Every structure is written in structure tokens, then in C-alpha cells.
């Protein structure tokens, strides 16, 4: 035991003396949370729109007023004719244009129906869709407010409620995702690199020619990264609660223990990578291509798994991050208890045991 503790201490020396890596390890989760939280958001806010009002009456003024009042839109341009529309879109000055036909109010009042044209820049289809929906909703609101004066015989109103995330915030989605990514990077990549470094530097050669089981030195390597991950998990959770206003709905102890379980899973993965590679570059490439990309692409963090083609859905099952993402989302955002995530936890545990066994079995006691 004393021996093991000494090895752990030695790993801490390695880690603490490499200031740059240390800075990246601690700084990365903070940076990622903040970047995802404030910069890379697909929420619609203050989008620049243009108005082409061919009618200029009370009704159009009312709608324009409401559009302007909403925090989604900023009216930057009043266009006088169709000819100006195209250039405004081309220059990227506006993302959406609202076009009122001539005699809008007149048509509306006399024919009981009038059209508004919404023209959206669909280079980003998701954004275009969202913008059009928001604008439609605002126009509907205006229509509702007119109801007092008008009598429609039958109307069906839809009432929407967004569960778990009423404000439709992106952060609810990416906090679990970033957590998976950071743990993947810190644990799998850094441990595999630090183990392979021993091979590259030749120190593994000496460790092998000693009475100790080399796997013990390797296991000792994981301890600092495990602790470091604990710090990272804590800082991500604190940031998401206090800076991004993402509350932790479920049991905190359960959440943290699931995070630690995932940490062990990726540590085992790191060990596996290091036992099949001999150079730091290869270890890094495998971690990036083999772990990092699937974590982003197939875990459901960027693209919903349900929408993927069947083969990819099947492949996504072997990505540990998918299960972790599901667990964290359910506990943290939905506030569910262990009863709802025990199956996924079991899968993750099974994967961990599998990776551990394979890597210990594969661990070479000689140089070849």
C-alpha cells in the first residue's frame, strides 16, 4: 500500500510539474462550458429582420410594433419594394423579412382573412424554421388581441408547455454533453498519453525489469486523473448551476456517483488504448478519432440518436458517452431517480469491467 501511495505521489509530481498541461486540464472545462453557454448557442435572440410594408395601416403597425417589442427580433430595415429584398438577404444584413400586401387591414376586415409573407434565409434551415415559427406566433398573438373586436365562430387554440426546460435553453442539453467530452479528454486521452510516455521514454523498460507487477504502476497513474476529474465535475456543475442557471433537479449524490462511474469507464478505456499503442501521437489520435468524435456525434449530444439511420443507432450503443449522456440528462434535468437509470448504469458498469479486463489481459509484460 505504501508502495502504491508512493507511485501515486510520483504521478502527481509529473502532473504538477507540467504546468501547461495542467492549465489545459483545468481550463478546458471552464472554457467549454462558457463557450457553449454564451457563444455557441442556437437560440434565437435579437435576429435582424426587415419589414416590407405595402399597406401602412393600423393592423400592420400593430404587428410591426409587437415584432419589435419581442426580444427575438430587431427591425433593422424598412424596405420599400421587392427589389431591395434580395440584396438585403445577400449581404446577410437580415435573416427574415416580413412582407405585408397592400390594403392588409382592409382585406382582413372585409374578407376575414389576409396573408403575411415571411421570407427567411434558409442557409441554416433550423434557424430559418425557428425564426418563421416565432414570427408566426407573434402574428397569431396579434390576431388574438383583435378577437375582442371580431367574432370568429369557431377557433381552436393550441396551448404549448415545454416540460423540464420551459425556456428551451440550449444549456440544458449541452451541460451533460460537455461533461462527457471533458471526462473523455482528461481521463482517456491524458492517461493513455502518460502511460505511453513511459514506453516512449524507456522508463517502462526498467519498470518491467523489476519485481513489481507493472500494472500496479499503471493503475497508480490513474489516481491523479481520477481526482482531477472530480474537480472538473464539480466545477462544471457549479458553473452550470450558478452561471448558466441550469438547476440540478435530481439527487446530487446520485448524479456525482454516476459521473464518477463514467470517469472510471473512460480511465479503463485510456488504459486499453495505452496497452495497444507505443507512441504518444498514436495514443492521442486514437483518443481523438476513436473516442472524442463518437462522443460528440453519436451520444445524442449534438444530434438526437432517434433521428439517426438504424445502423448508426446500433453503433451508438457501444459509445459509453451515449449512456452517460442519457443518465445525466435524466437525473440532472428531469430529476428522475435511480429507478429510471439503473439499466443504463448497469450497461456502463459492464463496459467498465470489460475494458478493465481486456486491458489487463492485453498488458504486455515484455517489450514485444
Amino acid at each position: 500500500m505504501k508502495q502504491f501511495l508512493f507511485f501515486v505521489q510520483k504521478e502527481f509530481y509529473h502532473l504538477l510539474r507540467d504546468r501547461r498541461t495542467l492549465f489545459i486540464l483545468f481550463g478546458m472545462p471552464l472554457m467549454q462550458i462558457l463557450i457553449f453557454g454564451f457563444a455557441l448557442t442556437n437560440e434565437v435572440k435579437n435576429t435582424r429582420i426587415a419589414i416590407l410594408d405595402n399597406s401602412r395601416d393600423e393592423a400592420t403597425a400593430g404587428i410591426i410594433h409587437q415584432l419589435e417589442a419581442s426580444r427575438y427580433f430587431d427591425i433593422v430595415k424598412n424596405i420599400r419594394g421587392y427589389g431591395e429584398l434580395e440584396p438585403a438577404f445577400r449581404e446577410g444584413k437580415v435573416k427574415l423579412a416580413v412582407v405585408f400586401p397592400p390594403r392588409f387591414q382592409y382585406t382582413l376586415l372585409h374578407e376575414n382573412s389576409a396573408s403575411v409573407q415571411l421570407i427567411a434565409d434558409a442557409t441554416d434551415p433550423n434557424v430559418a424554421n425557428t425564426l418563421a415559427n416565432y414570427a408566426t406566433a407573434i402574428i397569431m398573438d396579434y390576431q388574438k388581441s383583435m378577437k375582442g373586436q371580431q367574432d370568429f365562430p369557431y377557433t381552436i387554440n393550441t396551448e404549448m408547455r415545454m416540460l423540464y426546460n420551459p425556456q428551451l435553453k440550449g444549456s440544458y442539453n449541452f451541460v451533460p454533453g460537455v461533461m462527457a467530452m471533458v471526462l473523455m479528454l482528461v481521463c482517456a486521452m491524458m492517461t493513455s498519453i502518460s502511460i505511453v510516455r513511459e514506453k516512449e521514454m524507456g522508463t517502462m523498460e526498467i519498470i518491467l525489469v523489476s519485481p513489481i507487477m507493472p500494472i500496479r504502476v499503471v493503475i497508480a497513474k490513474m489516481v491523479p486523473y481520477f481526482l482531477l476529474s472530480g474537480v472538473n465535475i464539480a466545477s462544471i456543475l457549479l458553473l452550470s448551476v450558478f452561471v448558466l442557471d441550469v438547476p440540478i433537479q435530481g439527487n446530487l449524490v446520485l448524479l456525482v456517483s454516476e459521473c464518477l462511474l463514467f470517469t472510471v469507464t473512460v480511465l479503463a478505456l485510456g488504459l486499453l488504448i495505452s496497452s495497444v499503442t507505443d507512441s504518444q501521437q498514436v495514443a492521442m489520435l486514437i483518443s481523438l478519432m476513436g473516442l472524442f468524435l463518437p462522443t460528440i456525434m453519436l451520444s445524442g449530444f449534438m444530434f438526437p440518436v432517434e433521428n439517426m439511420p438504424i445502423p448508426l443507432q446500433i453503433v451508438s450503443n457501444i459509445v459509453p458517452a451515449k449512456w452517460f449522456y442519457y443518465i445525466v440528462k435524466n437525473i440532472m434535468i428531469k430529476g428522475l431517480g435511480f429507478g429510471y437509470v439503473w439499466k443504463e448504469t448497469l450497461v456502463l458498469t459492464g463496459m467498465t469491467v470489460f475494458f478493465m479486463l481486456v486491458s489487463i489481459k492485453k498488458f504486455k509484460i515484455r517489450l514485444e
Partner: protein
Amino acid sequence: MNSAVKVNNVYKSFKKGKTEVKALQEISFEVNKGELFGLIGPDGAGKTTLFRILTTLMLANKGEAWVDGFEVVSQYKEIRKRVGYMPGRFSLYQDLTVEENLSFFATLFNTSLQENYDLIKSIYQQIEPFKKRRAGALSGGMKQKLALSCALIHRPTVLFLDEPTTGVDAVSRKEFWELLHQLQAHGITIIVSTPYMDEASLCDRVALMQESRIMEINSPKGITENFKKPLWSVRSADMYKLMLDLRSGDVVDTCYPFGQYHHVVFKKDPHTVEEAKQAIATISAKDLEVQRIPATIEDCFMELMRK
């Protein structure tokens, strides 16, 4: 078993793409307990591979080997407990201090610096003033001494040193060999490899290796005594021209450059210096200097390579 190391017909090859590279062929030798045994040969002769097989880091394709009475494949754990190994490349933690490196290796072998202090005292004392310095910041000679201390920390019975003096300055090399002789006095069997022929004479016995084979095993004295032909050293104003002329003529059997002199074997041995000078006189060399000399290990190595 009285020998510290016994190697019997070891064969090892590596696959490089489709071709097979032979690293060791028909290697057999024995090292006695307490002996300082040298493996002498140029780079690529197979010294490191042989060391790795003996330190259980690699498996031979054919043949068998024992270290300290234990078989290298089946009893590798026993061997790992009792041998010391210093790889050719500096293989300590560059970002740890001298002291931390030593205590790491002490812990690795379940011992402490104090336990075997008498063994490494003379070595460690030389690096002790720098014990707070990181290993990466040490000079070449200091690094080797630290690596030697680490390899000795558990009082091994057999010590394997792979090219310990490569890249080390002349003074440090001399010191290093003195240290090895001191260690021998503690009863440790030492097997050392080196590409430097002049270090062969510092060993008890040497094996001359060349292209994956051992050419000869003998004491340094025995090897030089086996050089039966009379050897002459020749020197003139234009050394390069002299060598070309000597080699092209039919008077001389072999001629190799050795620093400031050429070592020459004549086809028909001249009995005196005068006769030798006359033999070369046909080659119009200026300031000719000729001398009869005893053979060195390197002369023998060159001779063996010709066979």
C-alpha cells in the same frame, strides 16, 4: 550452476515489413560469477537485443538462456527480482529530481536508499550535491552515474549495462570503468556492452560481436595474443596517399588507419625496421616512420571481420 549467465544457441530475428532481419544468430556463451564481461561490437551487432533477451524483455526465437540459474522465459519473475538493468538510452524520469528518481526505483524494488547505501555510496556521493536537481538537467556523465545508482539500488546479483559510456566524455568514461571495478569487488557479475574497442582491455573477458554473431570470446590478452602476424605502424607526411599506395601495392597484406598511424601487415614479413622501410620505399612517401607494434583488440576485430 556456477555461471552467472549461460546462453545456449540463441537465435532472434525481427520482421520488418516482408523481410526478416536477423538480430542474433547462434549465440552461445557463459559468464562466470563475479566476472566483468564485455560485449564489444559496432552499432547494430545485436548487443541490445541480446541484453533484452537476458533481462526477460524479449523472447528469443530459438535457444535457451539462464541468468543467475533461472531460465529467462519460465522463471522471468525470479530474474526480474535480482538483476539490475541500465538501458542504452537514458531512461529515468527527466522531470523528477535525482533524489526522487532514486526513491522511485528503491520503492519499485521494495527497498530503500539506506538499505544498500554501502554499495552505491561511492557513486551516489558524486551526484549527491545535485540531489535536488531534475534528472533532465544533469550532464551526460552525471546522468550515467544516476542511472547506475538506480540500477544498483536493490543490490542485484547480475548487472546489465547497455552501452553505458556512449556519449560520455573521456574523463567520465574512465571514472565509470573505475566504478565498475569497485562494484566487481562487491561480488556483482557485470555484463557491459560497448562499441569502444579500447574499453575491451578493461574487461575480464570479452565477446567480439559483428552482424548478429559472436566472432570470438576470450580474455583481452588472449585475443591480442591470437593475432599471430607481425604488425607494423607506419606514418608519413601524406597519410591518405600513403594508405591508398600501400593498399594498391603488392607488398602489403592489410592496412587500416588508426588515428595518427596506419597499422600494416606485410605479405612477406620484414625482420627489421630497415627492411620494412625498404619494402615500402618503392612507394615514394616523405618522412617515413616505421615501427614494430603489438596488436590491439581493434586489430584483432578487423582481422576477424575479414574472415
